[in-house]
């Protein structure tokens, strides 16, 4: 009886030790396995680009998909679609992402928005984004101290 009580006590102790580690592991797992949607508008002078983006992160490989509309004063709207894959890893609170493909949007963006980070346009270009969990359902991606995307988690990849 005494022995079984002792065993039960140690099972409880091991569980208490393991629980925070399991929770930490689960948090780390979720940080590396998620997908999210964001809407953003890039505004220049007499021009704007409204886009809906979808990010997928899964074990070091991700995809970026964006569809948008370019509005330039005095010109017809231009619809765009953009999809490429990237590899990524975490460094402290930042995520380093390296594009694996050209976006196909290089000409448009380098023309209208010359300060667009190369990652979104060219193959093998990197970007360091800070990713913060803002609430239970969303992350905020910021670049060089400036928030870019408020990304709401989606249920499936």
């Amino acid at each position, binding site marked *: 009886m005494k022995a079984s009580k002792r065993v039960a006590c140690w099972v409880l102790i091991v569980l208490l030790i393991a629980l925070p580690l399991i929770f930490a592991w689960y948090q780390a797992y979720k940080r590396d396995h998620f997908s999210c949607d964001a809407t953003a508008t890039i505004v220049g002078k007499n021009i704007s680009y409204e886009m809906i983006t979808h990010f997928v992160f899964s074990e070091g490989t991700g995809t970026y998909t964006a569809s948008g509309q370019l509005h330039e004063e005095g010109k017809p709207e231009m619809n765009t679609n953009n999809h490429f894959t990237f590899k990524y890893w975490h460094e402290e609170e930042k995520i380093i992402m390296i594009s694996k493909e050209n976006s196909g949007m290089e000409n448009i963006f380098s023309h209208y928005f010359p*300060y667009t980070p190369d990652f979104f346009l060219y193959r093998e270009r990197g970007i360091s984004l800070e990713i913060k969990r*803002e609430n239970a359902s969303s992350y905020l991606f910021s670049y060089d101290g*400036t*928030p870019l995307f408020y990304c709401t988690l989606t249920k499936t990849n």
Partner: protein
Amino acid sequence: MMNTVFLINDTLLFDPNDHSLRPIEGLPGSRVVIHTPASECLLLLLRHNHQVLTQRFLFEQVWEKQGAVVTTNALYQSIASLRKGLHAAGLTENIIKTVPKMGFKSVATVREGIAEEFIVPVPVISLPPAGVNKATETALYELPQRRTRVADFFNSRLAYLLAGIAFILSCGVLYMQRAGGESFYSDYSYIGQVNGCLLYSSWSGEEKSAQTFRALGSRYALTCKSGGVAYLTLNRSLQGLSVLICDRKIAYSTAECQSYIFRKDRYES
């Protein structure tokens, strides 16, 4: 039914069911069967370890219960027989102390448990070929010393101390992982209501922030629903500005937000 046994001084195993004493693995001595009254005396002494049991108590519990009436010598002979049995089984210490004018007491280190807890069957194939038959009989049930030591360790204060340290470290890992989890906007200053939005700004100056927000609003329609919140980020590198407009404070998980990035373009110098 589970067989309760006693481990005496981490040396001997006493099985009251078959009145036997046997040494644990690796110690000298052999299996000894003691007679029933001696076995019952030992059982009582071990169950009341470190307590003095009077002669009267022992008489009642061992003999009178069976309807037997015996002399004091019967008790002394039983105790003497018990001491010899313990010694023959390999116990070097005298654990049965005579307390003058009072009775007897056991001064052993005793652990009580089921036989399966202390005994691990040893596969026959692991035994050396010589003397297989005899060795098999004695080695089928052995108590590995290592297992006893492990059990003792888990019962020690050191084990609980280490467990406590492990728990603290475990919580530390979780805390470190979650540290810095505050909102990106946690240190933004509340500016006031501007263009229908509750405006928060990375710049603490109210006038400059409100003025910039209005200027951006004239460049692109920045509108808030009732109770909407706008977060204005004035980038220090001045490569662009960012506004996040949400239908409620960003801390709420139901907050819906859209970002506006105001960047220099080919028309700007």
